[in-house]
Structures are given as C-alpha cells and as structure tokens.
C-alpha cells in the first residue's frame, strides 16, 4: 500500500520536474551573478580560484553560517550522547599489529600535511578549508582505527574549534570597524597567483580548515567512543 502511494507521488513529481527542467537547457549558462564573479573576481578579491573567492568573500556570510551548521551538528551530537551517564571504558584495547601501527604512525603526519596544504593553497588551487579539514579529520580516523586508545584531547580540540570560529568572526568585525561592512577584504590583495595574496581569504580559509578538521575529528571521536 505504502509502495503504491510512494510510486504515485513520485510519478507526479517526475512529471512536474521534467516539465520544469525542459526550460533549463544544459551547458548554456550565462548567469548575471556568475559572469560578474568571473570577470571581476580576480581584481576585486585577488584569488585565482574564483570558487574560493565566491565562498569566502562574495558569499562569505553563507560560509560563516555553514561552519555554524557544522558546529551545531558537532555540539548536538555531543549533547545527544552526553546526556547519558558516562560508562567507564576500562576494557582492554586490543593492539594492532606492528606493521599497521608503524604504517599509521608514518602516514598520520603525511595526511595532516596534505590536508594543511589543501587549505593553505585554497585560493590558488582547487580545495580549501572544507576539503582540507575533511582530509585532516580522515587522518584522525586512521589514528582511531589503528592506534587504538589514542584520542584527540578534548580540551585542545575545543580550543581549536572555538578559535577557528572566532578568527573568522573577528576578521569580519575588523571590516565592520573600519567602516566598509562586515567581512570586507581589508588586507592588501598582494601579487596575483602567489601564496601571500587575496587579503583575508587565506586567513579565513586556514581558520575554517582548522575548525572543520577539529569538528569532524570530534564527531568521529564521539561516535567511536560511543560504539565501544
């Protein structure tokens, strides 16, 4: 019964969407806003990666909201688990084999470095705070899976998380204080295509990278702790 209703509903939506999509030809975009960003973005923000300049500068307020969403989810996840009484986890942690352990010890800093590279060069090459942060978190995932018993320290995680968010907000507020509006790109744009360019974009993306990395690592930590 439920299936029939679902299929009927889907059929109606299929009809509707296919009618609407017919008016959107594929591969012929010339949108006002997109064109403007492509033509002016290089001059106005100084970032080579226009997606980054859109994410961090033109639509930076969205990104602030977005890290707030991730923060909300991370805290919410903690609240969902935290309201239960902490069981004492005293079970013997089974050791990984030596090869796995050594490999993990070797790979962990390398992956961290890759993640850091991705978010530091976010304004020049593909990638940025979110991608880099996810890579950093995956390094911690590796550590949780192989070097069992090692945890990211709760306190330092919290500090990184908070500071990342506060640097973003602070950068925005500086723009407000000098009178050009919240999130105004107040630093010099620098020389195009070099690391030190694009004003506040790399700083914000690095802050985002740290924050996202810390948050996703915290989420994984919470889930793994719970699943013991």
């Amino acid at each position, binding site marked *: 019964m439920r299936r029939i209703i679902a299929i009927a509903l889907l059929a109606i939506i299929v009809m509707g969407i296919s009618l609407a999509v017919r008016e959107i030809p594929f591969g012929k975009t010339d949108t006002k806003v997109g064109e403007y960003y492509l033509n002016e973005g290089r001059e106005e923000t100084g970032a080579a990666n226009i997606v980054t300049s859109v994410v961090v500068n033109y639509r930076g307020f969205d990104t602030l909201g977005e890290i707030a969403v991730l923060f909300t989810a991370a805290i919410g996840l903690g609240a969902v688990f935290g309201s239960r009484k902490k069981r004492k986890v005293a079970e013997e942690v089974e050791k990984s084999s030596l090869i796995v352990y050594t490999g993990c010890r070797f790979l962990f800093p390398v992956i961290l470095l890759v993640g850091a590279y*991705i978010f530091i060069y976010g304004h020049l090459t593909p*990638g940025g705070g979110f991608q880099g942060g*996810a890579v950093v978190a995956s390094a911690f995932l590796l550590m949780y899976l192989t070097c069992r018993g090692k945890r990211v320290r709760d306190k330092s995680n919290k500090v990184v998380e908070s500071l990342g968010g506060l640097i973003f907000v602070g950068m925005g507020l500086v723009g407000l204080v000098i009178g050009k509006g919240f999130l105004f790109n107040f630093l010099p744009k620098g020389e195009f295509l070099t690391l030190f360019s694009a004003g506040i974009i790399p700083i914000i993306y690095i802050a985002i990278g740290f924050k996202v990395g810390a948050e996703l690592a915290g989420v994984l930590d919470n889930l793994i702790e719970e699943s013991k």
Partner: protein
Amino acid sequence: MNVIIATVLVLVMLVAAIAALIFKDLLNAVIASSVVSLIAAVIFYLLQAPDVAMAEAAIGAALVTAIFIIAIRRTKRFEE
C-alpha cells in the same frame, strides 16, 4: 566521447543507487551508496568542478561511509 563516458558513469551510479535500495545487508547498502558518492565526485570533475569533486570525495565518500559503518557496528547489520 565525453557523452559516452558520462552515460556509462551515470548508469553505473544509478545501478549502485538501486543496489543500495535492494540490499538487505546494511553494510553492503552503505558501500553501494559510497560508490554513488564516488562516481558523483568523478562526474563533478567532468563538469569542471574540482573543488566540489574534492569535497564530495573527502566528505561524501570517505567520512560519511566511516560514520555509517561506525553506526552500523553499534546497531544491527541486517534490515528486518
């Protein structure tokens, strides 16, 4: 040429999605859905969106799968 690659990718992706629908073993379903994400990442790359492709590969395919597997390990593996 591009069209053929895209068609093949889309078909495989849809098959993986249907597999995720059918599998009773949740672990298999999760793997199928991570295949969907991975192919989506490749398609993003074909559509000239390398930033999104990276995000989808790192977050959608890797981390989400890990979270799913952790959750399944904690609950039941098979659908009733």
